[in-house]
């Protein structure tokens, strides 16, 4: 093995909001090693009380996001070789813009509360007794919705957003992207109600289109585009007096 005997220098954030510091560890280098592998190795071999989150390890559950060398990433799909800087050091910290519970585990309550605030739930217009509605995947609205539905709620976009950092009321890219997929869902019955929610205080109009969310989204979604769509639809609805 090419990495036999080699180690990686890791700086890991320990502590919570009020008191945290980077602590240094040496971790054996392995082939195809992910950042999550590194964190897990430290927890299993050096620091049994290290707190961090993960579940699926294959980029589906969205629970393992952390800040790696200053950038928010999904750690289970981020190879160490990709993020190593010149010093052969890797710095792993919790996500930005969220309170830290301990070490690498953040409190995501506010993040998910904002999904609820943005009315990120489907409002049905039919019952189980109705025929299943046929929707062509080629319809414009459906294509818009499809472009945003692969969100895994990892919080990377929220952590990368400078508007979230400066405006605690801002709903954030993930919640607004979710709202945009529902605005484009022809089966949904809550369009106006949802547009009112996403244009209330901290709504889509607060986005500065800096595109941090789009840059870092691990699923290569484009929340900035979704938010721009919401702005346009909400502005037209306001001018028409529908809201």
């Amino acid at each position, binding site marked *: 093995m090419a990495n036999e005997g080699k180690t990686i220098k890791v700086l890991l954030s320990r502590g919570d909001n009020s008191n945290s510091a980077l602590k240094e560890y040496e971790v054996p280098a392995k082939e195809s090693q992910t950042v999550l592998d590194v964190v897990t190795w430290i927890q299993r071999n050096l620091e049994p009380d290290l707190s961090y989150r993960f579940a699926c390890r294959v980029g589906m559950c969205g629970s393992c996001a952390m800040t790696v060398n200053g950038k928010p990433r999904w750690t289970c799909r981020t190879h160490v070789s990709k993020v190593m800087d010149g010093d052969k050091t890797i710095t792993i910290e919790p996500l930005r813009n969220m309170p830290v519970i301990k070490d690498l585990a953040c409190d995501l309550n506010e993040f998910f509360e904002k999904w609820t605030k943005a009315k990120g739930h489907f409002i049905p217009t039919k019952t189980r007794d109705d025929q299943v509605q046929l929707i062509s995947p080629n319809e414009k609205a459906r294509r818009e919705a499809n472009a945003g539905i692969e969100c895994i709620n990892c919080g990377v976009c929220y952590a990368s957003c400078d*508007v979230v950092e*400066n*405006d605690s*009321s801002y709903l954030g890219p993930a919640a607004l992207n979710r709202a945009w997929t529902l605005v484009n869902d022809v089966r949904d019955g809550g369009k106006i109600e949802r547009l009112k929610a996403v*244009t209330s*205080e901290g*709504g889509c*109009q*607060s986005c500065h289109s800096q595109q941090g969310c789009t840059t870092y989204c691990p699923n290569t979604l484009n929340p900035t585009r979704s938010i721009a769509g919401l*702005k346009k639809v*909400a*502005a037209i609805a*306001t*001018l028409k007096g529908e*809201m």
Partner: protein
Amino acid sequence: MLSIKLYIAQRLTAMLMAPLVLLHLGVMIYAIQGGLTAGEILGRTQGSFFWGLIYGLFVVALSIHAAIGLRVVIYEWLGVTGARLNWITTAIVILLLGLGSKAVYAVVLS
């Protein structure tokens, strides 16, 4: 701290200003061809309804547009909210409208 109505106002004023800025830049390039003198500028603008309207519209659009932009900066960077933020926004509109109107008056009506 930006309502959807203020957002729309900022976008509409931007749409109004875009062609006015291009026109303004075009006139600047045209005006300096034979050297730049106050007499030449005033000769074009004084008593002109057209230039009065153009620059008057520009001043109104700019005052609204810039005040909304500054409102966001003041809210995000200084944390000012509520009635205080509204008063500051209004004061910026009045200040820019005053300064701009004075300039338009000077080149068109004086």
